[in-house]
Each structure stands twice: as structure tokens, then as C-alpha cells.
């Protein structure tokens, strides 16, 4: 992994400096996944969201992103309007990565960077940081699961935003890239970013923990 020396260390201005969950509850398909979930995450902090399969980790991440309605409770972004926070202040990387198999890695990285407000120069830097440069002209369908995940993660570096919502970000990565992406997460936190990550294995850094019980 090349050192991402030239990448923006953090979002230019910390649009979001706090993520606040207050007694959040989510119901999906008529089933209450969780209730009474509270969290106060500040700038520079990471939180590992744990729990059994089906406990609602993904739904909580999607609720923070505004994609799932809360049954009860509140989600706040430290005084930032939720629409602004979701439109300009957070990234979501989930199992469904939104990458189109028939397009090249470069096309996808460029599109998502532009869509999320990234600068053109940051695209190359993001690709270098995740060692994607030799893969940029390959169609996404030709990438392995780990390479594809790195491409999905590179979108976050190509358009810096303060809050990263990650759904099992490390699972398809090999040991080298678990370590490598861990370093990038630390860098993001050092720059004042926030990370909420649904995981089954511990995050490779000091992180708070929030367990959801089904």
C-alpha cells in the first residue's frame, strides 16, 4: 500500500462533528429490530456496531443515512440539518456497493467522486492509496471481491466527508488490506472524522462499542 501522503487528511471543514442517537428504534417487516439505542459519537471517534445476524446493524446504519425510517427516537448530527448532513456529510459503504459490473473501475470511481462532490485530483490519490491504479481500466466484473471492496472504499477518499458509515468493511479484505484500510481509518479519525462501523471482528483501532441485541 502506498502512503496516501497527498490525500486530504480530513474533510475540509468538519460539517459533522457529532453523531447523536437517542432512543432509536427500527421496525422492519413488522418486526422490531431494536429499540432504545443511544450513542453520542464525537469528532475523531469510531464506534464498532456489533450484534448477531439480524440484530439490525445494517438497518441502523441505513437509518443514520436516512434510508430507513425510525420507529422511535432521534438522530442528530451536532446541529447540522439532517438533509445537509446526509447530502454532503456522510459516506455509506455496504454489502450492495452500487458499482456497475459493466463499467470500468475508473468510470465508477470518477462518477461517484463527482456525485459526492469530490475533486478530480483526489480520484488518482484515492486510487493510489488503495493500490487500485493498475485496476482502473478493468471492468468492475473482472475485480475480485476484495478489489471491488477497495474500489468502494476508495470512493470515500475521493470525496472526503466527515462521517463514514461502514457495513462490515473489512470482511472481503485480506490481512494486508485490513491493516492498510485500518491505517486509512485512523487517518480519517485523526483529521476529525467519525466512523460508525458494523463489524463482527474488532476494528483495528481504539473504538467504542455498541451492541445491538435482537
Amino acid at each position, binding site marked *: 500500500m502506498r502512503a496516501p501522503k497527498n490525500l486530504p487528511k480530513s474533510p475540509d471543514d468538519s460539517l459533522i462533528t457529532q453523531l447523536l442517537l437517542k432512543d432509536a428504534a427500527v421496525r422492519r417487516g413488522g418486526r422490531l429490530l431494536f429499540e432504545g439505542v443511544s450513542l453520542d459519537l464525537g469528532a475523531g471517534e469510531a464506534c464498532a456496531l456489533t450484534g448477531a445476524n439480524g440484530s439490525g446493524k445494517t438497518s441502523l446504519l441505513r437509518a443514520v443515512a436516512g*434510508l430507513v425510517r425510525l420507529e422511535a427516537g432521534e438522530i442528530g448530527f451536532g446541529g447540522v440539518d439532517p438533509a445537509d448532513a*446526509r447530502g454532503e456529510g456522510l459516506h455509506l459503504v455496504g454489502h*450492495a456497493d*452500487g458499482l456497475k459490473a*459493466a*463499467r470500468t473501475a475508473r468510470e465508477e470511481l470518477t462518477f461517484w467522486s463527482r*456525485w459526492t462532490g469530490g475533486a478530480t485530483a483526489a480520484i488518482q490519490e484515492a486510487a493510489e492509496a488503495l493500490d487500485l491504479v493498475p485496476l482502473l481500466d478493468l471492468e468492475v466484473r473482472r475485480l475480485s471481491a476484495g478489489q471491488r471492496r477497495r474500489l468502494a472504499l476508495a470512493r470515500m477518499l475521493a470525496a472526503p466527508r466527515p462521517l463514514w458509515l461502514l457495513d462490515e468493511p473489512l470482511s472481503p479484505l485480506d490481512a494486508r488490506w485490513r491493516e492498510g484500510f485500518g491505517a486509512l481509518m485512523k487517518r480519517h479519525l485523526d483529521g476529525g472524522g467519525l466512523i460508525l462501523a458494523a463489524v463482527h471482528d474488532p476494528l483495528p483501532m481504539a473504538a467504542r462499542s455498541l451492541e445491538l441485541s435482537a
Partner: protein
Amino acid sequence: MSRLAALIARETTLAWGRGGGPLVALGFYAGVATFLPLAIGPQHDRLAGIATGAAWVALTLASLLSLERMFERDYEDGALDLLLLSPVPLELTCLVKCMGQWLAAGAPLALAAPVAAIALGASPALAPLTFACALLGGLAFAFIGGIGAALSLGARRGGLLTAVIVLPLFVPPVIFGGGALANFAAGLPWSGGFAFLGAYAAAAVAFGPLAMAAACRNALS
């Protein structure tokens, strides 16, 4: 603008690349124009009488073919989630996706429409109006079709559901466009039907994205 330009370029290229895309629609359209004379006989007068109507109906049905995947693939692969995480309102995103659909499928079909009509025996004088009606009708079909595609997100047999939803809404443009063409061919005033077709297309462009965005949000949540 940079975001919207990037999205429309992406939608257009994806539409050309995905199965059931514009080439299939064009193939279907060419097939109808080819098989119709084989089925009803090669008598020129008989064919000429129904040429514009047949071309118009074939265009309507061909427009259906590429609707199913307008939102479905983005919904399945998570791209729809990510499209929401932007300052661009979802309504505008839906509008741009439909414009991409129109550019990729509607415009090529509009180019093919006069050719098909003339091949079936219509007067070449009808070609400009056939093209204009197909362009406007294609716009209406893309935006009305987008509503059906968004409403059927996540449903089994989404393509069938899309067709069931949108076919009744395709009736007015079929009547207005077909009426304008028939009147022109008969030497009667045709501008009324054409104006109604334009008004219907404008209404579809204005209100369709609101319905699509609401349907997409509902499907995602």
C-alpha cells in the same frame, strides 16, 4: 450541473449496455415493421391505411421494453442508496434518469419511427410529424414509464407490473399522437392532437419525477 451531467452520461451509457436496452427496443420495432406486411398481405393501399397507426402502436410497445430496469438495477445493487446521499434532490435525480432513458431509447426509436411508417407505405410527407410525435410521445413514455418502474421496485415480476401500471397511462399519448398523424394523412387539422400530446408530455415531465421519488423512497424504507 457537474453532478447531473455525470449522471445523464452514466444513465445513457448504462442504458445502451444493459439487456433489454435500446437495441432490443429497436429490434422489436423493426420486427413489427417487417412482420406486419407478412401477416396482413403486401397490398399497398391496405398497408398504407394503417401504416402510421401501426408504427405508432409499435413504438409505444417498444418503449415498454427498456423500462423495467430503469430503477430496478440501481435498487438491487445499492446505487439508489448512494444516489440519495447527495445534495441533488431525488426528484431531480429521477428526472435525469428519465432523460437518460429518453436519450438512450426514445430518441433512437423516434428516428426509426418515420422509416418504419414509410416502409409500411405511409406518405413521406408524414415523416416530420411522425418524428416529432415520436419524440414527444417518447418523452411521455419515459416519464410515465418511470413512475411504473419506480412503483414496481422490489416486486416479483416487476416488468409485468410496470406494464400493467403504465399501459393505461399510455392511452392518452397513443390517442393524441395517433389522432394527429391520422388527421394529417387525411388532410384534416392535426395541431390539436399534437398540442395535447405535447401537453401530456410536459405534464409527465413536471409531475412524474415527484411520483418516482416518492415511490423510490417508499421502496428503500
